[in-house]
């Protein structure tokens, strides 16, 4: 009887078996990686805006408090994006003719809103409430990242559920003193854990059972 296959096929066939297994694994890994990649998460991707607003300038250099613009952050679920009027309260005095600010002036003139691109977006079945997070000692930069160093704003975290859970499971690793909440330059101290555990008690932060309860965020 004649050989049907060439010698080499022995090696080939065995390789192909391992190869198949490898490809399956690689595929899974690949999909996972893509899902984590900036392309999907938009982490560290600066979003183009109608007006190149710089938090770096306003927060770090001018030292304007977050709440000057994001007025409802302590009262409401929605932090609030400043009305044109707020911008103009300063920019009617300074940079009056800056071409960069033309859209703002136009907005006030034509009474049409500026359409900002949302940077930190959550799916609509997630009900996030700013006020309670502020109340419980979560600083702005904990989620929004080093906002004070962003010439143009980008998303600092994936905002994936897994990421949220990280803090909801161990708030002590993230909470800070109330005085520091709006401090964009805040760095957690070395004794964060001890401090955190103390603050969790002071703030009466609920236990993990409560914080990871589904309806805490989903309704």
């Amino acid at each position, binding site marked *: 009887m004649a050989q049907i296959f060439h010698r080499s096929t022995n090696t080939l066939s065995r390789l192909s078996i391992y190869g198949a297994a490898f490809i399956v694994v690689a595929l899974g890994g690949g999909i996972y990686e893509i899902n984590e990649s900036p392309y*999907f998460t938009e982490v560290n991707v600066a979003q183009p805006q109608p007006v190149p607003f710089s938090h770096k300038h306003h927060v770090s250099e001018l030292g304007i408090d977050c709440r000057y613009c994001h007025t409802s952050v302590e009262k409401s679920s929605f932090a609030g994006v400043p*009305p044109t009027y707020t911008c103009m309260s300063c920019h009617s005095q300074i940079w009056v003719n800056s071409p960069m600010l033309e859209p703002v002036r136009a907005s006030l003139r034509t009474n049409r809103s500026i359409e*900002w691109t949302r940077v930190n977006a959550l799916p609509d079945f997630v009900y996030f409430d700013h006020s309670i997070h502020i109340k419980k000692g979560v600083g702005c930069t904990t989620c929004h990242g080093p906002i004070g160093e962003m010439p143009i704003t980008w998303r600092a975290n994936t905002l994936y559920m897994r990421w949220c859970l990280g803090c909801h499971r161990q708030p002590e690793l993230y909470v800070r003193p109330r005085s520091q909440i709006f401090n964009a330059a805040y760095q957690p101290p070395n004794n964060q854990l001890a401090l955190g555990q103390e603050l969790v008690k002071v703030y009466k932060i609920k236990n993990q059972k409560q914080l990871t309860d589904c*309806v805490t965020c989903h*309704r």
Partner: protein
Amino acid sequence: MIFGKTLKLMAGKDNPQERLDLVTIRARLEEASGRRTWQSLDELAETQEFKNFLHHEFPHVPEKSSGQVSRRDALKFMAASAAFAGLTACTKLPTEKIVPYVIAPEEIVPGKPLFYATAMPFAGIATGLLVESHMGRPTKIEGNPLHPASLGAADAFAQASILTLYDPDRPQVVTRQGRISTWSAFLDAINELRADQLVKKGEGLRILTETVTSPSLADQIQNFLKQFPQAKWHQYEPAGRDTVREGSRVAFGEYVNTYYRFDRADVILALDSDFLCYGPGALRYARDFADKRRIVDNKSTMNRLYVVESTPSNTGSMADHRWALGPREIEGFARTLAQQLGANSGGVSITAPAGIPTDAIPTIVRDLQNHKGTSIVLAGDQQSPAVHALAHTINHALGNNGKTVIYTDPIEANPADQTQSLGELAADIRVGGVETLIIIGGNPLYNAPANYELRSLFFPLPTTPGGARPASKVKLKIHLSLYNNETSELCDWHIPQAHYLESWGDARAYDGTVSIIQPLIAPLYDGKSAHELFAALSGEPGRTAHNIVHDYWKNQKSIKDYEIFWETSLHDGVMAGTAFAPKSVPPAANYNVAGGDSSTGSGGIAIIFRPDPTVWDGAFSNNGWLQELPKPITKLTWDNVAMLSPGTAQRLGVTKGEVVELRLAGRALRAPVWVAPGHADETITVHLGYGRTRAGRLGTGIGFNAYALRTSDRPWSASGVDIIKTGERYPLAYTQYQHMISQDQKEVEEESVAAFNRQLVRVATIEEFRKDPDFARDSEENTRADDSLYPPYKYDGYAWGMAVDTNSCIGCNACVVACQSENNIPVVGKEQVSVGRAMHWIRIDTYFRGGLDDPETYYEPVLCMHCENAPCEGVCPVGATVHSPEGLNEMVYNRCVGTRYCSNNCPYKVRRFNFELYSDWTTPSLVPLRNPNVTVRSRGVMEKCTYCVQRINAAKIKSELEDRDVRDGDIQTACQQSCPTQALVFGNINDPNSRVSKLKAQSRNYSLVAELNTRPRTTYLARLRNPNPEIKG
């Protein structure tokens, strides 16, 4: 991640896009006119900008023969795209825009709802409301606790009216002869008219309105009539209260308004009156009535309710004694009673009713006499003047006047016999005496008495067969109404009416209290209010409704700092000191209450006309929530039926769903039969409000039009109707009894029998209860905590629970609509309901006890039990339904993959499944309606009652921001809030002092199917009855 996409389409959360426009409009109004003042609304509405916004926001919906079809196609497409969106395992969130204000209105905190007090005029009479507004768009209607007619409750009509506000079928432009025109063009026409009529002093000028209680509007009309002395003002309300007014006139020689103090009444006799659910003050009556039979312990007392009625009603099912009597018998019964009480019985021959045991009447008489001054005898709005007069004289004889029965000046601005008034109008038209007819609201061509043949007057038939139709004798016909309906179709001008949430106005409540109606949003469709129309007619088109109302009351209340008074009235929703003072009216001596009986006449089967329990006189035909709302007791949706008693049905050999032809005085009508347990024999009940030919995509062409048989002399009941079998069957959709395959009553009985065997409903008389307070308690072994192999789960902190007092539930459906509105529950349509896919999260189970000829009826609101050992949770493969540390059974929509296993395993079948894409994602005008705090469910997702978890979370966050615990009463579920009798109570069962804990501590407390050890958080309190021991049976 499919939600991530879909919800963009609906304002699941405040979608910034929608938010912007409505709110900037609102903001603009603020600037324009300062706080809470809405002048220059229409100027603004005229602006191009606003028009663009309207167009972009609410584009015209093309006329479709049947909305269903187009919707279905849309659904397919949506479903497909949804599917494919989902198929790509990980989807990227689409880019969103944030659109801030240009200038922020100061009272709005983005993301926080505001509440405004206003009032809804229903048949002219006001119920006080609070309306929740998210970023300028009203989303939910609740009762106004400060309003005497509401006390915080709201009925189904009021709550559903918000859907009417956003109804895409509402007309959006002024039309002339059916062609698009403008308001300004109309104003020109009005000016011509005025010029012409001023000369003729209004000769041939006629106004037709619905019942008007609005003092300011009435004032406008009077001024108008001063300008045009020859003009006449007619009123017509199809489900109006003519017989009530006439009854009072007969009794007292003048029109008086009657209302009742159930909080003072221990014995109540209702003569075919559904006072608990319908009519002015019903919400208040229900509350007072329930308070008088609230059980705290076995020393508590209850009032006693006797009911005689023809058609089974909610009130009838609350009765301690109920007898089904035909219309004629009811009058006979009233006469007998009056006579035995020594009151004026009209001196006509007494016909003692056959349908009631002879010993009963004397006993009732005795019971009433033992409660002089603490009893009420009241007649239903649909009873003849004679019966009303008899009720008045009986109350007088019992000394109830001024104590439990209060008389005041009429609340109608211009009380009259409306049926007669419309008749005069018809007659004038017939003789050509009417040149111009201005119709404010209403739909007379649909709902006028058949014998007036109003339609042919508007649209004359050819004199010669096949010849051309002559022009109508009325040269100019103007119609202002919410919908372009059967009447508008034949009018020369149609003006879109502003919804009451869009316009300023005022109205009186059942006791005369005035509420200011303040708008929550600029008119979406360029609508005008009656005030604005009359302003135009009176030659001052510039005047806005706001000014008219504001100034009218300024003149009335000549007080200093009126603005503060005004602001307070707006804020509270009631105008202080406007309730009428009680007046004592002696009955006219020996008046004649003979005749007037609208139901006498040849014998045979009597037909009864009633306004429909959910669409009323047809005004709500196009309201999906109300169409799909299961009608009390029948559980019927999307249709009306001809109700018969089981006995009569058997005698005639007809069964449920069989179409019969009803013939009365030469008029005929085809209607499907419904066999109603407890209906009076030899009597047939038909409900008005269906058979619309021009109602909108939902209301058109469903049911039959009972007005076709209704004549002016017999508005509510007539004798001698012939019933002819046609052999046809008609499919009906109902939400209970769905397991029935044969149409006979055996299965209805089987169902109720099973319900009682299973102790789902637990009942005792008050005596039995006093003897054995624990009669309802679950047996020991069914309630042991250690009934499981596993250790019990500890709930520290809050533990939410609910107690449902079946002793208070009157089955009025308010909770069902409240839930639907609060939780964005979709409407699924007749076809889906009929295959068992209705979506209501709370349903009112109805069971009968005793023979079906005259059964006791029991209601049991069933919502999610939030079992501590929830059978649904263990079987979910993805953990989409889990238990919260506070004991909530949570449903996580975005995790649900739709295996329906949870529903299968739910012993209470309270779970609802989106078998198709039920939520309407395609109609833009419905987007702003949705509650932004509740996810709008997509197709293939299970949903169910959440105890309004969005409200729980809001309250918890609020309490933590204020460094305190949630207080009892901070959280009210939507159903609880709307309940007129406070039958549902929600709260923290770990707090022994909470209302819910106190209720659950009662001995009447029990849970459904306790033997499964599901440990439900929703428990029930047993129903008690207070029958008169002297009456057997």
